[in-house]
């Protein structure tokens, strides 16, 4: 457990020699000990190709590498911070929601179209995720940001969960997601309930939802 929640908007990370952390550039609030921050031109892990991939995908948020020994405090923009612990599975999250993550996690970029083809692309547009999203895989923890508090909803094969695309933060596990529309004639004549698009998540895993419908 690398990250410890100090309060709802701040996390403390312990950095040990030989271990690395990645964090959003400028998200450091304070640190103790001998810690160095180096801007990471590649915007994460992997080689040159990964970097190019992220640039092309628009998932290249400026990251920095945190190394040394000591403790570092992270927070950004007064947003709520939530720590997610991964045990071997894959977390899907938008790059700009990432506050910090363990260096042991493998970072990747996923094309939205690879999950559900054209509907996947439409989903990306509706949720504001764009055409690509970031994946993190392995053992370790991730600190993600959200507007308002975050709560978890477990997804089981018997209980698919529907989420408002604007309130969706991240999900992990073996989850299929698709955009379900509840468009009726009422929406066409401007008398919709404001819930025309929903993200349907089914399978087994967890989805993280924020208590707000505002973007970061």
């Amino acid at each position, binding site marked *: 457990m690398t990250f410890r929640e100090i309060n709802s908007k701040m996390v403390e990370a312990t950095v040990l020699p030989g271990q690395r952390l990645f964090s959003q550039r400028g998200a450091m609030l304070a640190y103790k000990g001998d810690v160095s921050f180096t801007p990471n031109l590649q915007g994460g892990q992997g080689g040159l190709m990964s970097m190019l991939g992220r640039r092309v995908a628009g998932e290249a948020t400026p990251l920095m590498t945190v190394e040394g020994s000591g403790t570092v405090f992270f927070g950004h923009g007064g947003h709520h911070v939530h720590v997610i612990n991964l045990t071997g599975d894959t977390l899907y999250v938008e790059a700009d929601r990432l506050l910090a993550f363990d260096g042991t996690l493998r970072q990747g970029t996923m094309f939205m179209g690879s999950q559900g083809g054209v509907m996947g692309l439409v989903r990306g547009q509706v949720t504001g995720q764009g055409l690509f999203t970031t994946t993190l895989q392995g053992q370790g923890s991730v600190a993600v940001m959200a507007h*308002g*508090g975050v709560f978890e*909803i477990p997804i089981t094969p018997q209980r*698919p*969960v529907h989420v408002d695309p604007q309130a969706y933060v991240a999900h992990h596990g073996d989850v299929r997601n698709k955009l379900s529309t509840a468009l009726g004639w009422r929406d066409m004549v401007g008398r*919709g309930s*404001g*819930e025309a698009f929903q993200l349907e998540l089914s399978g087994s895993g967890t989805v993280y939802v924020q208590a707000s419908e505002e973007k970061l």
Partner: protein
Amino acid sequence: MFRLQGSKVLAVDMTGDAVKAKNGSMVAYDGQMAFKKLSGGGEGLRGMVTRRLTGEQMTVMEVRGHGTCWFADRASEINLVGLQGDKLYVESSNLLATDAGLRTGTTFTGLRGASQGNGLFTTTVEGHGQAAIVSDGPAVVLRVSPQYPLIVDPGAYIAHQGNVRQSFQSGVTFRTFFGEGGGEAFQIRFEGDGLVYVQPSERNTIAGDL
């Protein structure tokens, strides 16, 4: 059944019954849910005319189904209010959800409404059941009793319930006209017996500028 998940998320467990909620405030659900738009301000033709005239048009949706539905509104704090046949007066922008069995209507508030920056009308909720109201920051519930009237800043007032009379009082003096006012030129005075919900934040009001 309403329950709070944290202070900013309202979870409602439903078994075929319905709730009324602010349009677009659903953040997630499991099970089967159907969403339908309703219009606030009361039912029927009379309600429609009232809404048109008063401008107290809350767009409401009816959520019906089996499962759990989660509601939230721009990370505002949520307060649960239980109603046993009494009436809750609340600004439509502060009302998040109510049991479908509760009746909603519109009442005239007069000068007090104008000073709150919310117009001349307010929403009423009446019946037996639960309602959820939102506030900017955690709200405090203050009791009004015949011996102890309560005076509230119009910008911080969100709702009240019970047998309460309200009047408007002003602390406007000649200093106010010279721009030397204390910023508290108008207040609402509550007398009687009931509860008043106050938020730790002030909306922009005409009174706040004086």
